[in-house]
C-alpha cells in the first residue's frame, strides 16, 4: 500500500530534493521482513550496510547539483561531492603512470634498437674543410636557456610522477619525501620561466619554421629515416618544423595548465585543477618523448648535428646533405668560412670587426 504512494509522490514532484526519499524507498522494500526480525547481531555481517556509503551514493546519483551553501569560506567548500576526483584518480593511477611510463621506456628502447641498426648517421662526404655559420650567439643562448629549463622541469616532473613506484622502493619514504619536496618547489618556481623561454624561442625561430613546399615531400620520404637517401630541405626540415610547432602548441598547453595549477588564486576549483593536471601531464610526456628523440639526434644519432648549436657553425658537407636548399643559398652568398677562420672566430683570437658582423647575422 505504501510503496505505490511514495513512488507516485516522487513522480509527481521531482522538483525538490528527493534523495532521502530514495533511501526510504530502498528500505521500504524489505521493510516487512526487517521490521519483524530482531535487528543487527543476528544478521550476517555482509548484510550490514555502511550507512555513510548509502547516503553518499544517493547524494552522488541524484539529478540535482551537489552544491550547497556553507559557513566555511573557500573555493568549492559548498560542493558536497566531487565525482570527477575519482575519474582523475583513475586517470592518474591506471593510465597516466603505467601507460606514460611504458611509453617513455618504449621510446628509449626504440631509439636504442634504431641506433643498433643504423648506428651514428655519418656525414657521407666526410667533414669538409669549410663551415657555414648556422646559429648566432643569441640563438644559441636562448636555445640552451630553454634546454636547461626544460631538462630541469622534465626531471623534477618525472620524479614527482614516477617517484612513488620507482624511487620509494629504492630510497625509502623519508629520503624520497625530501627529494620530492625539492622537486615540487623547484618545479613550481622554475616553471614560469619556461613561458619566458618559449616566447624568446618562438619569436626568434618562427619565420624559418613556416611550412614550405618541399616539406610534404620530406614527410612522404620519411625524412630519410626509412631509406638511406637524404631528402632535400631548407634551413629546418619538416621534422624540425613539426617539433617547433609542437613545442609552441603543446608547450602552450603545458604552460597554461601549469599556470592554472601553480596559481590557485583565481577561484579555480578542483575540476579545473584536475583538467589542468591531465593536460599538463599528457602534454609534458608528449614533449619529453619528442625531446628524447631530439637529444638522440643531437648527441649519438648523427654526426655533426649538434655542431651548429655548440659552436654556431656547421660543417658544409653536413649542411649540404641535411639542409641542401639553405646550404646552397648560403654558399652562394659566400658565407662559407674555412676551418681556420672559424677556429679564429670561436677560440683563439678576438673577433675581427668585419667577421663579427657576419657572425651576429648568421643563420638569418
Amino acid at each position, binding site marked *: 500500500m505504501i510503496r505505490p504512494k511514495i513512488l507516485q509522490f516522487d513522480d509527481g514532484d521531482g522538483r525538490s530534493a528527493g534523495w532521502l526519499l530514495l533511501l526510504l524507498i530502498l528500505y521500504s522494500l524489505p521493510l516487512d521482513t526487517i521490521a519483524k526480525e530482531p535487528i543487527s547481531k543476528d544478521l550476517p555481517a555482509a548484510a550490514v550496510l555502511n550507512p555513510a556509503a548509502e547516503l553518499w551514493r544517493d547524494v552522488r546519483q541524484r539529478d540535482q547539483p551537489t552544491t550547497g551553501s556553507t559557513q566555511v569560506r573557500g573555493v568549492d567548500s559548498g560542493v558536497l561531492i566531487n565525482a570527477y576526483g575519482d575519474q582523475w584518480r583513475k586517470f592518474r593511477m591506471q593510465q597516466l603512470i603505467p601507460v606514460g611510463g611504458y611509453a617513455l621506456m618504449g621510446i628509449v628502447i626504440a631509439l636504442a634498437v634504431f641506433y643498433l641498426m643504423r648506428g651514428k648517421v655519418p656525414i657521407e662526404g666526410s667533414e669538409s674543410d669549410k663551415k657555414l655559420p648556422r646559429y648566432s*650567439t*643569441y640563438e*644559441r*643562448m*636562448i636555445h*640552451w*636557456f630553454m634546454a*636547461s*629549463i626544460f631538462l630541469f622541469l622534465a626531471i623534477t616532473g618525472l620524479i614527482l610522477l614516477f617517484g612513488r613506484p620507482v624511487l620509494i622502493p629504492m630510497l625509502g619514504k623519508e629520503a624520497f*619525501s*625530501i627529494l620530492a*619536496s*625539492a*622537486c*615540487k*618547489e*623547484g618545479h*613550481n*618556481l*622554475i616553471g*614560469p*620561466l619556461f613561458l*619566458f623561454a618559449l616566447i*624568446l624561442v618562438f619569436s626568434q625561430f618562427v619565420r624559418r619554421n613556416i611550412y614550405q613546399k618541399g616539406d610534404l615531400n620530406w614527410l612522404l620520404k620519411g625524412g630519410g629515416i626509412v631509406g638511406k637517401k637524404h631528402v632535400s630541405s631548407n634551413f629546418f626540415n619538416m621534422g624540425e618544423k613539426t617539433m617547433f610547432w609542437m613545442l609552441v602548441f603543446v608547450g602552450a598547453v603545458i604552460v597554461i595548465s601549469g599556470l592554472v595549477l601553480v596559481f590557485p588564486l583565481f577561484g579555480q576549483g578542483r575540476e579545473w585543477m584536475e583538467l589542468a593536471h591531465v593536460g599538463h601531464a599528457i602534454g609534458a610526456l608528449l614533449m619529453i618523448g619528442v625531446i628524447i628523440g631530439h637529444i638522440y639526434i643531437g648527441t649519438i644519432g648523427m654526426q655533426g648535428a649538434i655542431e651548429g648549436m655548440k659552436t*654556431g657553425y656547421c660543417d658544409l658537407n653536413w649542411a649540404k646533405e641535411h639542409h641542401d636548399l639553405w646550404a646552397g643559398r648560403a654558399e652562394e652568398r659566400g658565407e662559407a668560412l674555412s676551418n681556420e677562420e672559424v677556429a679564429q*672566430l*670561436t*677560440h683563439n683570437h*678576438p*673577433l675581427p670587426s668585419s667577421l663579427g658582423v657576419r*657572425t651576429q647575422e648568421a643563420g638569418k
Partner: protein
Amino acid sequence: MIGQFIDGPLWTFSLTVFLIGVVWRIAAILMAGKRPDLATPKGSAGAGALRAVFSRFLPERTVTTQGRLPLIAGYLFHLGLFALLFFAQPHIDFIAEKITGLSWPAMPHWAFIVAAEFAFAGLILLWLHRILHPVTRLLSDLDDHIGAVLVFLVMLTGCLALAQAFEPLRLIHLLSAELLLIYFPFSKLMHAFTFVMSRSYTGATMGRKGVNA
C-alpha cells in the same frame, strides 16, 4: 651531527672568513693610495666620484645597442638577487637571528618568488652568454665560472628548500651559502663591494679634470 656542524662552527667560520676577507681586500685597495696629482683641479673630485657611482647604474649608450638580452639579463639577475637576498622573509629572519638581531619588513612571498625567477633567468642567460659568445668566453677564467656556479648553487638549493619544511634541504642551502661566503673575498665576486671604489676612482679622476664622465 653534520647538520650541527653546518649550522654552528662552519657558519661562524665562513662568516668570519668573509668579513675579514672583505675588510682586508677593501683595506688593501684603500691603502694602495693614489698618485699625487699636481695639476690645478678644474672641477670637484668628490662630485665627480659621487656622480660616477650612481650614473654607472645606467648602461652606457654603446652597450645598449649591442646585445640587448645580456643587458636585460644583467639587470634581472642583479636586481632579483639583491631583492631576494635582503627582502625575503626567511633571509631576514636568518639575518636577524644569526647576525644582527635586527629585522626589517619583508616582501610578500610572491614578490620573493618573482625576484627569484628574475635572478634565475638572468644568471642562466648570462652564464650561457659567457660560454657561448666568443669574446666573453675568451675573457672568462676559472674564477668567473666558479663564482657563477657557486651563486647558481646557492640559488638553486634555496629554491629547492622553499617549502621550509625539510631540515636537510635547509642545510644544503646553508652549506652552499657558506662555501660562497668563503670563496667570495678572494674572487671577482668582490665587485659587489669594489664597484664603489672603481667607479669613484674614475669619477674623481675625471671630475678633477673637469670632465663629466
